[in-house]
């Protein structure tokens, strides 16, 4: 054979070695190729052979075997082989007694070709008799053996790296499986419906509660358009618009919020729901996860509560009205004054933009703001002429007396404070505590203005009615000193501009 022939053989074996990435096929295919080229019927490959110890044999692992069934059964096992067979330079030896020590049928082989693999191990090609060849086989394959040694290292590194990757992948898969199992258990146990949508609005998850809530089984729901399935027709256009934006950005009018809506069951009935939606970016697409709670019960409770609160408020109003009526029976002037003051205070608060509930509290407080006068003897209240100092002292005690009467009643508004403070003035000149500025609650600041205007405007047993302008002049005179400017201004506007009527029954 010429050089070209040798090169083609080496090229062929080298290509086989270079084409493998795992140790086992590398070793097997290398042996196959060597057998193919040399006509030896059997090839063995030992790796990581211990250094020659004392003794005639060495325990070495048989990494690959081709062509001998019995030796093939020993692959992966450690076998005792002659030191002189495994150690040494490349060599072709005929009639070798060393081969009789291999664990195979006696007398099968007479010849071996040893090819050391550059410190990694050794290849032994075995034959009953030496196959014909014109090549110096001990030399020809040495460059290939050097490459094989490097290929074994590379394959081992690759397998170690792959093993790490596989281990990490398996850990991740197990974690994912556990996570998915937990999720499914949670979702299955959840009382709320849990629904997931793909970026086309199609249902990709539908838990058992969703089945119960909407009446659609999982098989019916999966893949269906969620909006077509459970959204009332009146919502669908809005949903479609919102979902179009969601598809591109993961944003939407209800994303990240909790909203109350109406939903449709399979049987066509509707139910109120509370929906919370979150966005998930998976595989470069936006998916939506929705948790839906049936709030039929809550809505019924809320309605009952509202009804109950209404009843309570009406009862409270009735009680206050009863108190006011009681006062009226004893002192008609005071009673009329409280009612008119309440109407005026309500009008002022409305003009100032107060919330209706707060205005209602102010109205009720104003209705009984003079309740403390129940302790003032009737002859003092109704007697014309100037009061003595001691009589006036009795009169001035009525805010504290009124406060004591109602302070233990749990109003939802500061009624007791309104009563206590309705004679306080901004500059501290009022009574009973001489409070200043913001120490006086806003309700009392309105009530004080309304009280004064009504008192001056209306008829009293001890004097005739002075007229509304006198009342307004009084509060304007003390605007900012005794009275809150904003309250004074509002009062002036409603009387002068909105023509507030002091007559409870205007014609």
């Amino acid at each position: 054979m010429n050089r070209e022939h040798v090169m083609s053989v080496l090229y062929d074996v080298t290509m086989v070695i270079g084409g493998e990435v795992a140790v086992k096929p590398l070793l097997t295919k290398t042996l196959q190729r060597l057998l193919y080229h040399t006509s030896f019927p059997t090839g063995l490959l030992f790796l990581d052979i211990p250094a020659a110890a004392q003794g005639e044999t060495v325990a070495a692992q048989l990494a690959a075997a081709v062509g001998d069934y019995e030796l093939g059964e020993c692959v992966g096992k450690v076998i005792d082989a002659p030191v002189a067979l495994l150690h040494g330079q490349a060599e072709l030896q005929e009639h070798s007694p060393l081969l009789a020590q291999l664990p195979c049928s006696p007398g099968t082989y007479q010849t071996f070709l040893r090819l050391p693999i550059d410190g990694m191990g050794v290849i032994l090609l075995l034959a009953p008799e030496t196959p014909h060849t014109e090549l110096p086989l001990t030399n020809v394959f040495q460059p290939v053996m050097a490459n094989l040694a490097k290929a074994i290292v590379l394959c081992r590194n690759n397998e170690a790296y792959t093993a790490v990757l596989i281990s990490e992948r398996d850990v991740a898969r197990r974690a994912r499986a556990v996570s998915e199992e937990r999720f499914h258990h949670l979702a299955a146990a959840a009382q709320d419906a849990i629904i997931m949508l793909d970026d086309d609005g199609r249902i990709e998850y539908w838990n058992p509660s969703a089945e119960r809530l909407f009446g659609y089984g999982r098989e019916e729901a999966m893949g269906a358009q969620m909006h077509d399935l459970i959204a009332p027709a009146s919502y669908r256009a809005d949903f479609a618009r919102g979902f179009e934006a969601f598809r591109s950005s993961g944003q939407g009018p209800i994303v990240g919020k909790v909203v109350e809506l109406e939903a449709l069951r399979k049987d066509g009935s509707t139910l109120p729901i509370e929906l919370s939606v979150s966005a998930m970016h998976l595989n470069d697409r936006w998916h939506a996860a929705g948790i839906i709670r049936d709030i039929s019960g809550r809505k019924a409770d809320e309605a009952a509560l509202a009804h109950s609160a209404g009843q309570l408020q009406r009862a409270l109003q009735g009680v206050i009205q009863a108190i006011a009526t009681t006062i009226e029976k004893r002192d008609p002037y005071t009673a009329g004054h409280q009612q008119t003051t309440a109407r005026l205070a309500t009008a002022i608060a409305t003009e100032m933009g107060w919330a209706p509930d707060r205005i209602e509290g102010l109205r009720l407080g104003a209705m009984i703001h003079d309740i403390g006068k129940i302790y003032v003897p009737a002859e003092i209240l109704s007697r014309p002429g100037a009061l003595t100092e001691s009589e006036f002292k009795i009169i001035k005690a009525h805010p504290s007396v009124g406060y004591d009467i109602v302070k233990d009643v749990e109003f939802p508004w500061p009624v007791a404070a309104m009563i206590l403070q309705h004679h306080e003035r901004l500059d501290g000149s009022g009574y009973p505590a001489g409070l200043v500025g913001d120490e006086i609650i806003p309700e009392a600041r309105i009530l004080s203005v309304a009280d004064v205007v009504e008192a001056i405007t209306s008829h009293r047993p001890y004097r005739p009615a002075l007229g509304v302008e006198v009342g307004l002049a009084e509060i304007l005179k003390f605007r900012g000193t005794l009275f809150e400017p904003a309250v004074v201004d509002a009062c002036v506007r409603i009387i002068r501009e909105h023509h507030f009527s002091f007559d409870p029954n205007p014609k």
Partner: protein
Amino acid sequence: MSAMAMQYFDRVDAATVAAVLQQWRKAHPAMGVLALLPEGEKEQVGTLQRVCTQLNVPLVGAVFPALVEQGVFRSNGVWLLRFDAMPYAALYENVPTDPASLTALLDTFTDDIKPHINTHKDSTLFLLFDAMVPNIGTMLDELYLRLANRVHYMGANAGSETFQPMPCLFDGTRIVSNGVLALLLKPHRGAILEHGYSVPQRMITATSTVGNRIQQIDWRPAFEVYQEMARAQYGVEVTRENFYQVAVHFPVGIVRANGVILVRIPVALEEDGSLFCVGEVAPNSMLTLLQAPAVDSVHTLDTLLSGLSGLYGDLSMRDLLLFYCAGRRLHLGVAAAGDELRGLEQRTAGARIAGALSLGEIGSTTQWGYPLFHNATLVASVWGEN
């Protein structure tokens, strides 16, 4: 096996065949039959199946381009080769090419045959493939890994010489394509394979191969190189129609370190201009193009018979089974090929030679050698062994 264990009939006549089978069965109640048919008699497979079914005789067989009968190629008739006791036989069809399916098939193959191997030290796995199976080399490598030296290996490819798909392997009830027929002969000491092609001094490199297709030679489209060579050597314009006739003169060789070339004969031109061979060419392997290789017929026959004598002793008066490559006959010419057959007949002194023109051969040049898939060879063995 007794004398007259091989019978050639020049036509397939049901009554004649039945008479012989009945006669054989008297002496060998557990007998079976291997039938070799030429392509021209493929319609007669049904006749054989009917006769064997009626007589309850196990039948296996294959259809080849032609038969070999003593020193002559025959395109008519049938060879019936008797097994004194029907051996293990398995017929697999539609051999897959994807690795996972092939592994599954080979697992089944080896699991099925292993329990039958151990009763004799010398057993031969005799394989008849449909020549259209594209991965015969891979299958041999895998079988050698699994069965190793528990069996000897021999075999041949059946099919049409036109390389058109054709159901060509059969048993008593089926005829299949793209398959393999496996027979476990025992006791049997294998076969000897020889071609006598010498290693050429000049080599041309096939630089790109995939499976059994050669895409490039010398870094150029394979067909271009072929056309140039045929024009320069023979003044012949290569076309798709005459490709097979021309390409046999330019077989591809894979040079082995033992100096024995593994021959691959391109048999068809693919649509993309690549050359289709019967038998795989290792991926990216460096090949040689054997330009009009010299065949030493005398050496071939001497080596073949020397090997056979080494296995079986005196061959005179023995029954021999021979597969002769169809590509070799084309390359040498019918006359020279016939001379080889007659030379074999003369050297075996009264031996009967039965066989077929094959489309690829399986074996080794020595006993216990690594089994390989070849083209252009003669594979010979003794039929029956006492």
